[in-house]
């Protein structure tokens, strides 16, 4: 634990920490392009040069390990001049096409220029090295070679993180340009990350570019709903529309990365129609719109009747591995406490077996639900039924009469999805009375006795428990669409239908109840579910 002095402040660094890392921890920002905490050190940009006593030359903060007694200055005139020099050099061959560059607002070239530069750059265009613009690098990425500062972050990402090596430096000197072989598309499943790590406008997102200036966006911290890894993400949205998902750095889960499917998963939310209000199947078998309060009361009484007539064993609850812990907790609480139900399932396709199964060496897992482990921890598995197929058989045999089913379509599609959904439909058709909670419309829902619109991912605050038992907080980005409600609230209403419960008015309260009553979650404070999340035993 070496002690060192930075800008006159004496601080302690961790062993092996570099100056840039130690400085960042105490809030001293050292400008940089090439340094990235999750990539190997390269030291090429020369922006992070700092003045270290007893070193004759300025030294790169990213590549210099803090040693005992080191005296570092990051803001003296010598350093500022060096940084100004590097910035001026970076603009020598830069096209300065900022007005039409989609990186504006997130461009380190612009940002640092405001702080350090403000010099005039008078190099005539004829003297600049011209390179290629608007090169299509596949579904995720567009390359502009002229704007590139050659920091090599993207090259290192492809070399060291995905190991696919598509992006490389070509040429030498001021003619060096990044590119792929024959402009081939980036073929790795994580290509969108190169856009995030590009500090300038050289690599922009094909999906997002020119959709919205970034300063108009609002960000909500969330957890990716695309698989059981549960990468930390930020949802950037405006006026009820999601524009993009970005990874949030979580060293324990996804570092700074996000897979392309996860990144694009929000588009699934706007695919197909949303259910806008509760529907109840009328006497003629035709679903008709109904008011929430009426529906809640009728569900409650109908389920109670079923329990009274056929025993509590005749009611089943089918949770969703894509629902929040809060929703699943109140769902189970309602069915077991109010109706005495004992049969619960959530498995549509062996999620419990696949929850930790890797799809690749980096982040993706084969289970495309964010909360299978949460469902397992809440005990939504029935050994006798062994999954939804068992429930279908029991319903066909008449042993199960009624069911409450939450179904959320996976945001990342896989070939087995239709079959899994068909099993839900089959169960619904096999039940005498079914309450289906869903976000998106589907034909089979017409068979449901009651259809309740619930919030989709991004519209509900709550927690998800990932494959390794890490509980992570996901904030709400958008208001629930149309007349839908967060699933936890639907069950809070059902629990309050008798007027006996005090009622839960926030997901936070639900979490506290869960932490009190579920052994796996005991003594966990909700604040712990914030970055990087808290791991419970699996």
């Amino acid at each position, binding site marked *: 634990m070496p002690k060192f002095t930075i800008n006159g402040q004496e601080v302690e660094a961790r062993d092996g920490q570099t100056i840039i890392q130690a400085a960042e921890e105490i809030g001293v920002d050292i400008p940089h392009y090439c340094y990235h905490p999750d990539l190997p050190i390269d030291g090429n940009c020369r922006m992070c040069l700092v003045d270290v006593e007893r070193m004759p030359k300025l030294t790169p903060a990213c590549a210099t390990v803090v040693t005992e007694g080191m005296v570092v200055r990051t803001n003296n005139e010598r350093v500022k001049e060096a940084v100004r020099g590097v910035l001026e050099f970076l603009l020598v061959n830069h096209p300065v096409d900022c007005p039409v560059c989609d990186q504006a607002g997130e461009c380190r070239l612009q940002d640092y220029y405001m702080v350090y530069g403000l010099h005039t750059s008078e190099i005539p265009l004829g003297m600049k090295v011209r390179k290629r613009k608007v090169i299509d690098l596949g579904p995720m990425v567009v390359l502009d070679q002229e704007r590139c500062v050659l920091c090599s972050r993207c090259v290192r990402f492809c070399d060291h993180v995905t190991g696919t090596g598509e992006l*490389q430096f070509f040429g*030498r000197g001021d003619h060096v340009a990044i590119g792929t072989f024959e402009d081939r598309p980036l073929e790795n499943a994580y290509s969108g990350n190169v856009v995030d790590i590009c500090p300038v406008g050289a690599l922009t997102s094909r999906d997002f570019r020119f959709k919205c200036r970034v300063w108009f966006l609002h960000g909500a911290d969330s957890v990716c709903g695309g698989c059981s890894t549960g990468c930390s993400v930020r949802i950037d949205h405006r006026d009820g529309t999601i524009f993009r998902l970005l990874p949030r750095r979580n060293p324990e889960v996804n570092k700074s990365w996000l897979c392309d499917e996860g990144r694009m998963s929000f588009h699934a939310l706007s695919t197909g129609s949303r259910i806008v209000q509760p529907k109840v199947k009328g006497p003629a078998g035709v679903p008709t719109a109904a008011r929430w309060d009426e529906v809640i009361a009728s569900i409650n009484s109908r389920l109670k009747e079923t329990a009274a007539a056929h025993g509590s064993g005749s009611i089943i609850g089918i949770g969703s591995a894509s629902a929040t812990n809060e929703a699943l907790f109140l769902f189970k609480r309602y069915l077991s406490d109010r109706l005495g139900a004992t049969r619960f399932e959530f498995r549509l396709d062996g999620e419990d077996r696949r929850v930790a199964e890797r799809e690749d060496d980096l982040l993706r897992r084969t289970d495309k639900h964010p909360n299978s482990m949460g469902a397992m921890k809440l005990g939504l598995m029935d050994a006798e039924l062994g999954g939804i197929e068992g429930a279908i058989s029991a319903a066909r045999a008449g042993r199960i009469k009624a069911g409450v089913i939450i179904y959320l379509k996976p945001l990342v599609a896989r070939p087995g999805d239709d079959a899994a959904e068909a099993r839900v439909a089959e169960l619904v058709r096999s039940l005498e009375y079914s309450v289906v909670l869903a976000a998106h419309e589907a034909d089979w829902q017409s068979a449901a006795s009651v259809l309740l619109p619930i919030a989709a991912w991004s519209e509900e605050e709550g927690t998800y428990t990932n494959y390794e038992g890490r509980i992570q907080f996901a904030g709400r980005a958008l208001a629930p669409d149309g007349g839908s409600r967060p699933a936890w609230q639907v069950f809070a209403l059902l629990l309050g239908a008798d007027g006996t419960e005090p009622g839960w008015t926030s997901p936070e309260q639900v979490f506290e109840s869960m932490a009190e009553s579920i052994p796996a979650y005991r003594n966990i404070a909700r604040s712990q579910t914030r970055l990087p999340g808290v791991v419970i035993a699996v």
Partner: protein
Amino acid sequence: MIEFSGDGKRRYQNILSHYPEKRAALIPVLTLAQREFGWISKEVAEYVGKLMGYPASDVLAVASFYTMLHKKPAGKYHMEVCRNVSCWLKGTYACVDAIKQRLNVDFGGVTADGKFSFALTECLGSCGTAPAMQVGDRYYEDLTPASVVEIIEKLAND
């Protein structure tokens, strides 16, 4: 689909045997590939990449760093004339003009018969015998406008 010749394959194996790690053989293998195929085309980069287990982009990126690995077709005799200080002092450009005139091609060009190409290059280490040029594994030194034309004539009749 291109492939090394039988001799090329033997040489390839021999190159590999010189290094404790395969990657170190990449540049010598690219040199061999240039000898076999004339230049490092994308097809060649892809072939070498497959042969050695590296992405084609990686192979081409390496090739693009080294000026002696041609990224476009070169003539049978690729003449590289030194443009650096000592050669320049001793009249490189007079020789260059003579070459241009004789071959009727500019820098980087290849003659129509594919026999000659020519380019300027950096210091060849022939400063004491300037001006100098390299043609394959031969140096021609103490050049004059007359001598470069003679050299071309000789090579042309080769």
